[in-house]
């Protein structure tokens, strides 16, 4: 088989796995592009942010960060906390991505929730004559492409929508409400979900909308560290279970996958 043939074959094998993500990303990415356009940014902003950050939740939040006063420390801290779950994708795929040369860089760069769940689920069911590296790379690139192009399209179309777009920014609130609920439904203990709401709400009341995020994040981290002993057992199960069973990937990925796939 020629090199081009190997590459093409892997693309054909990878595409069907990504179709559920295509539907989800087309909607969310488009909504993101429209949202950013409606907030007053030119069309290439959602495209560029989607391309370099490539993490949906943070891209939405980045719009608010760009509209608020410049706050580098709070920005970096918030970004780290929102994206911290990726650490576990890397830990789970360390062996899978071993020895793939230059492909490894792109695989890790594009390792979002959805790509993780597909790679994690599909890696064991792969036909023998399909190149593993190319297969995983195509999954990563296809998902990335769906998202970035949808964001670009949303940014382009956003200004031409034939209706009043006032209130469209609520799409970000709705997204986080849904993700929060999914997380809630998959946890038997709701202590940290409540902690997030209470710490943020209390901090907002005390410090005001402009400066409540850093104190809220510090409170959350402090409480999690101080209450580690009682909380650790309650929060021990989900990650290690799915890892041991090896059936569905991380909770986050699985939650997003479930949401998107229906």
């Amino acid at each position, binding site marked *: 088989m020629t090199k081009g043939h190997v590459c093409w074959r892997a693309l054909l094998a990878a595409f069907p796995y990504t179709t559920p993500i295509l539907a989800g990303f087309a909607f969310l990415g488009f909504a993101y592009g429209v949202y950013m356009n409606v907030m007053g940014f030119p069309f290439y902003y959602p495209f560029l942010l989607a391309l370099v950050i490539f993490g949906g939740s943070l891209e939405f939040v980045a719009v608010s960060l760009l509209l608020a006063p410049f706050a580098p420390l709070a920005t970096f801290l918030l970004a780290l906390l929102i994206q911290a779950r990726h650490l576990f994708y890397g830990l789970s795929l360390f062996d899978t991505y071993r020895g793939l040369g230059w492909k490894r860089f792109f695989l890790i760069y594009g390792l979002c929730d959805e790509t993780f769940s597909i790679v994690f689920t599909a890696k064991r069911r792969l036909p023998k004559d399909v190149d593993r590296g190319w297969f995983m790379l195509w999954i990563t690139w296809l998902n990335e492409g769906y998202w970035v192009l949808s964001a670009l399209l949303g940014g382009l179309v956003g200004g031409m929508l034939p209706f009043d777009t006032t209130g469209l920014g609520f799409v970000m609130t709705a997204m986080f409400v849904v993700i929060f609920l999914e997380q809630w439904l998959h946890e038997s203990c709701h202590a940290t979900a409540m902690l*997030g709401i209470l710490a943020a709400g209390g901090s*907002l009341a005390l410090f005001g909308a402009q400066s409540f995020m850093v104190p809220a994040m510090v409170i959350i981290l402090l409480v999690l560290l101080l209450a580690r002993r009682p909380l650790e057992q309650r929060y021990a199960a989900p990650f*290690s279970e799915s890892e041991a069973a090896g059936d569905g990937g991380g909770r986050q990925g699985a939650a997003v996958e479930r949401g998107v796939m229906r």
Partner: protein
Amino acid sequence: MTDMPLYQQAITVLLCTAATMLTRFLPFLVISARKPTPPLVRYLGNALPAAIFGLLVVYCLKDVAWGRPPHGMPELIAVAVTAGLHLWLRRMLVSMAAGTALYMLLVQRVFA
């Protein structure tokens, strides 16, 4: 459009990118062979996401003026309907689209 000068915009986006890539690349850079995940990392990984998404829900609602009419009614109603729909159908895109459409209707027509 933002009031931020371009260099501050660039720094903000770069910090978001750096933080994201740090979380993606770090495991591949620091793991040595097959050491088990440190317990603290594992614990935070399980306990943190719910807290962060709770924080982000509050973050989205931070600019609501509770003291002035309509006292956050459009937000409360739209959040309740989004959540209710999601508990009922569990379809992420349906809940989001319907909740957003309802909110737009509320702020444009009902509470305008």
